[in-house]
């Protein structure tokens, strides 16, 4: 069976949805952050698939930059998590309740 654009997009959508599920349901900050990375990867897959079927390289260049930006963001995010953990000794999202809603 011929594998077309739709197949790749379905995989991308499933991964995106799984990442979203992780962000919404999990309570450990590190796992939430990993689900966020999963969502970004899903968008990357969509971009590369579109790039192949649109016959230009713009999508691939975009993915290249997205990977770079995601790496920088991971560094900052993990530094934030470490800074918080040092003070609160917890990585459980429900314990972050100093700011009243």
């Amino acid at each position, binding site marked *: 069976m011929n594998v077309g654009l739709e197949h790749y997009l379905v995989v991308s959508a499933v991964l995106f949805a799984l990442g979203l599920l992780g962000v919404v349901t999990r309570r450990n900050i590190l796992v939430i952050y990993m689900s966020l990375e999963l969502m*970004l990867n899903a968008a990357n897959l*969509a971009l590369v698939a579109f790039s192949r079927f649109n016959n230009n390289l*713009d999508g691939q260049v975009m993915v290249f*930059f*997205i990977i770079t930006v995601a790496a920088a*963001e991971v560094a900052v995010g993990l530094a*934030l998590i470490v*800074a918080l953990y040092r003070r609160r000794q917890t990585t459980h999202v429900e314990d972050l309740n100093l700011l009243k809603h």
Partner: protein
Amino acid sequence: MEVLKLAAPETVLVVIALAVLAVDLLALRGQPVSMRFGIGAAVAGLGCAATMLMLLGRHAHANLFDGMLVVDPLTNVVKAAIVLLTLFTVLISTAGKFTEHVGEYLALILLATVGMMFLVSAEDLLMIFISLELLSLSLYVLTAFNKRNIKSAEAALKYFLFGGMAAAFTLFGLSLLYGMSGSTNLHRIAEGLAGKGMDPLLIVAVVTTLIGFGFKVAAVPFHLWAPDAYEGAPTPSAAFIATGSKVASFFILAKIMMIGFAGAEGSAAWRTFISGWMPAMALLAALSMVLGNLTAIAQTSLKRLLAYSAIAHGGYMLLAVMANNEAGMAGLLYYVITYGLATLGAFGVVQVVEDATGNDSIISFTGLSRRAPALSLCLLVFLLSLGGIPPLAGFFGKFFVFSAAVGADGNHLGLLWLVILAIAMSAVSFYYYLRVLKAAYVADGADVTQATNMMAVPVATLAALVLLAFLVVILGCAPALLMGLLQAGDQVGH
């Protein structure tokens, strides 16, 4: 070399940011914080002033690399306004007692400004994403700067997680746009989408893009990060998030919707519903106006009050985007710039009061008119402008936005229902602004000792606030000054 010439203002700011870092690191170790802030702010301020002169003095028209860097009079004016807001933020931050890392703080503010400037010039999806991420990353770090207060780190983490999710949604939406049209340039995307009508994938793209940008401008229901971020962040950082980044985000949102999604507006007129981005944005605008204003009434902390007021003002600005014409764009920019000036001033006043009394609740403002008369006069100007009283700038901002919305769509009065809602909610907003002013001017404090001590106001902050108040009054008495600049740029640019 073309790039360097056209991106000269941004390059200057990057060099100044590096210079501030270098000066602080090499020459100022061991000096008291106030001196380091003073020298750093002076260098940064000079850089901002030079950049503004460069922006307002040049008349170039260029479109580099097919949408990566678009230079025209309108973007120059918007960039100049952003740099002006940055300059005032730097001045206000000099009085801050929340950090010793002066060089890094000022450098990050300047680099965030560079991100904003590139965002304003962008018409290509990749540039939009990268500038947005540069801006956001700097803002996350700026929010976490106060290492003595754990609320700062917590606010930054919440902001970061929400922001990361929004970035993922935006990215997915942008990838769908690229996929459907074959290009990453906004104009070519519109051409590519033109023949297709409202196919379901386009709807998904519209929704995900709106989710991503709705987060950035703190529209309801993507506003949950804003009150916590504004409350936990050091006050100059909160001021910066509330003003400069809003100008850039709304400008680029308007550009994406008006240029990129040009064929997919749909309609949000009363009793008609054609699917497109307009009904979705109408929903966001209405929810933001209502929820922002109503929740602000219950706030006792002034920073959270300003956060909810920012959400409400975002609703009015979304209304301007929905006008979808040049009057709407000019009105939007006028509104967001004057809103930025007034909010920046308000945050400056909050910082002074917070440093003097230890918290930012409305009770701390009691008797402010006796303890710091110049400061409370500035506060009066800022809050009245935010409420929309003539002859201050806020009134004309609302006037231009509402008239653009009413006159949109060929004068069929389709958006009238939103305008009426906006006017009603503006009236509601008077209540909480006047409540603060009442505490400052009218109430005689229950805590008598606190209400009679003269408050120490740092000179640089006071000078900046007086200048801001002066600007707000001038822009209100002569709205044509700013509107002329915006409209002249508009006609040539679009």
